[in-house]
């Protein structure tokens, strides 16, 4: 396979955004007739690389060669015309139009401006036949399942004479049989010589369909591997950025003293709690003074699980018990009334209100719980805000500054302060340390440990395994939207052990 010249070759690609180097000297090769997986954690640079390739972004260095000739695309349209087609995660089609219209929209066969409908339908049928699909091409797209819609998007992409087909998270909204159908189509295209770039965070799927893979981490190229040569375990280690020895080294470091724990009373218990498409039904207990860590890759259902404990999404199976009493969480407000707080992973869209001040953002949840008729006296507000601005070291320490002017880390601290002043019994914190600097990260970890020492139960979600290991008393491991194992974080549990479970198959 290695003997054929690559259809696409990117060398030394560099892309800098203000304040951050998104891609640093990245090489990427795509061979004709292969499925190539682009792997990496969130923020590793996968989507930036794809956007550079498809002309959404320009480059700050490096060269792209397509079929041997150097190219530089100024827009996605140019990339498409050169034979690079992209199917995005969200299906970008018009569900109210017919299948044929969707395939040919903007490129309809015409005579004197009039569309030749019969030819359009005939060509749509032919095209779908290449994917082994038989559809009524006059029916509205909305009558077909998401998987079929995805295939129609692919049909549209390959009709533009694609040499390279980019599939960005195509399986995230598909069920198992739909995935199998999609993979069959991918193999068919591969056999026809199309080079497919595949991005997915489902490791099992990558191993099922990909021939080779390229791993990125923090905007750097980690390596290019044949799928058969790289065991799943080692792939995870390379994505997370700890080789196995380093992980074992980390284990020998002393852990938080809070780990020897006398279990407090049971606060929350999930009984068969689950949500279709989010997280399979699971059981879990959280006690006072306990930090429960959720570990798993992005998309493994961590966030979905956390949201069910707060009523941010409604569970469609099972129920929650708070203090031993069953509780239906219709809205976050119900959860708050029972002393539960939730800091979302999307701090910009679901956390802070950007145009409100630091002070207003901090008192928001407490004020909402009190209702509008009982405003918190300004003096009390200032006391609370001052206390937490100091305690969490929020910078700049100006309570009247709009939150949007603060850095991500400080916004995160504002969000934490919002929940801390409500004195929750169970605090759910989703990815509090993502994208923030080391100092703020350490402070947030310290706060979590202190909260637990003070008797608060904490449900802690993080993509960083060391963080989960360091803080948690109990670790819930998730894979493919399923709770696969619960581990007491005793001394014999290490990153290696957790990673085995995350990678799957090799547990024990």
């Amino acid at each position, binding site marked *: 396979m290695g003997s054929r010249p690559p259809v696409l070759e990117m060398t030394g690609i560099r892309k800098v955004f203000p304040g951050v180097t998104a891609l640093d000297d990245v090489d990427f090769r795509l061979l004709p007739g292969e499925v190539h997986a682009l792997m990496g954690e969130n923020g590793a640079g996968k989507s930036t690389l794809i956007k550079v390739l498809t002309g959404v972004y320009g480059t700050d260095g490096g060269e792209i060669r397509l079929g041997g000739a150097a190219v530089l695309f100024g827009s996605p349209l140019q990339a498409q015309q050169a034979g690079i087609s992209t199917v995005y995660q969200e299906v970008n089609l018009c569900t109210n139009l017919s299948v044929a219209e969707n395939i040919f929209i903007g490129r309809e066969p015409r005579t004197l401006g009039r569309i030749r409908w019969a030819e359009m339908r005939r060509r749509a049928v032919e095209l779908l036949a290449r994917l082994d699909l038989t559809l009524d091409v006059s029916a509205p797209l909305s009558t077909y399942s998401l998987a079929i819609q995805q295939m129609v998007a692919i049909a549209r992409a390959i009709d533009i004479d694609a040499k390279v087909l980019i599939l960005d998270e195509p399986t995230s909204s598909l069920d198992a049989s739909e995935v199998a159908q999609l993979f069959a189509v991918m193999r068919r295209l591969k056999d026809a010589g199309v080079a497919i770039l595949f991005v997915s965070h489902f490791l099992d799927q990558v191993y099922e369909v990909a021939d080779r893979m390229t791993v990125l981490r923090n905007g750097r190229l980690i390596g290019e591997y044949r799928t058969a040569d790289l065991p799943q375990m080692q792939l995870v280690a390379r994505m997370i950025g700890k080789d196995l020895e380093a992980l074992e080294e980390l284990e020998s470091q002393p852990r938080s003293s809070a780990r020897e724990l006398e279990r407090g009373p049971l606060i929350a218990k999930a009984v068969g709690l689950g949500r279709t498409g989010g997280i399979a039904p699971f059981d879990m207990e959280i006690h006072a003074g306990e930090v429960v860590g959720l570990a798993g890759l992005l998309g493994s259902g961590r966030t979905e699980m956390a949201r069910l404990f*707060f009523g*941010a999404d409604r569970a469609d199976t099972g129920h929650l018990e708070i203090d031993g009493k069953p509780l239906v969480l219709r*809205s*976050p*407000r119900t959860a*708050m009334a029972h002393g539960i707080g*939730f800091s*979302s992973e999307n701090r910009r*869209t*679901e*956390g*802070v*209100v*950007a*145009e*409100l001040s630091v002070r*207003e953002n901090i*008192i*928001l*949840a407490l*004020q*909402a*719980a*009190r*209702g*509008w*008729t*009982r*405003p*918190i006296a300004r003096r009390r507000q200032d006391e609370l805000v001052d206390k937490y601005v100091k305690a969490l070291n929020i910078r700049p320490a100006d309570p009247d500054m709009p939150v949007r*002017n603060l850095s991500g880390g400080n916004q995160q601290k504002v969000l934490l302060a*919002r929940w801390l002043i409500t004195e929750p019994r169970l605090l759910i914190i989703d990815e509090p340390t993502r994208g923030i600097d080391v100092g703020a990260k350490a402070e947030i970890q310290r706060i979590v440990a202190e909260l637990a020492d003070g008797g608060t139960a904490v449900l802690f979600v993080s993509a960083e395994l060391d963080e989960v290991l360091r803080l948690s008393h109990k670790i819930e491991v998730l894979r493919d939207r399923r709770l696969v194992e619960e581990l007491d974080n005793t001394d014999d549990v290490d990153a290696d052990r957790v990673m085995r479970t995350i990678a799957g198959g090799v547990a024990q």
Partner: protein
Amino acid sequence: MSFVRHRLFWPAAILVALLASNIFFSSGFFSITVHDGHLYGSIIDILRRSAPLILVGIGMTLVIATGGIDLSVGSVMAISGALACLLIGDLDNQNSVTGVLLACAAGIALSLVLGIWNGALVASIGIQPIIATLILMVAGRGIAQLITDGQILNVTSAPYKVIGAGYTIALPVSVLIAAGMVAIAVVLTRRTALGLLIEAVGGSPTASRLAGIQARRLTIMVYVFSAICAGIAGLIYSSNVSSADSNAAGNLIELDAILAVVIGGTRLTGGRFSLAGTVLGAVLIETLNVTTVSIGIPVETTLLFKAIVVIVLCLVQSAAFRAKVLRRPSRVGASA
């Protein structure tokens, strides 16, 4: 120069410029005289004419702050005025103060119900605000016609006339009513937590939900408040002309009200709002109307003249535009 940075600086400056321009056309423009213990003069007149727009504007401000819009205010004005005039016309003695007060109360109560209707459509059923209130905007004129039986109802009630055309403590009653409602709105939003919660919902509905704010109840409240304001404005309008005209009352006032809100610095996308800004905007629009008359713009072109002034106003208020014209980097725009 810090006052230049104040967000109401530019609308205030334009208001002053408009007022000043009048002096060239009518020399007595700024003079205020006292007749029979009442203040008279163009400025007082502008305030008096602004009263309905101020009322409708402050209601609109709160609705827009939640990310909504209320197109039905003009129809609510017509309905409220029509009901009051109908009830007054049925009185044995149209000069009975109690009877007039009850008629006004009935008009306001009906407005409240209409506000609940709007709020329920938006918050409970989830219809987009522009569509939900469009229903009442169109249907409301029909309801008003139904109340007046398709006629223009004339009343001859001295107590009713006081609301729109009377004076007390030297000032027009309508101005005092508007001032009173502004005061109530300010107290409701800034002395309680209502303003903060409204701004949070308008600023980020998702974040607000996750902070435990019950947006539904808040949304219904602002539509009810808007309808009550419009209902009172309708009473002032119909009292001023001593009749209920279902077609003319509050015709196109929703557009002026939205404009007043925008001039006052509240963004149509919701979030931070300014009641003072809206009052300023309403007075500015009324001043513009008076100015078009006083500088002798032909009737056929008044709308065009207004449009041009509004465009200039919006451009001047835009930090990005000022920066472009002045050819220097915009510090205001960079931080926004």
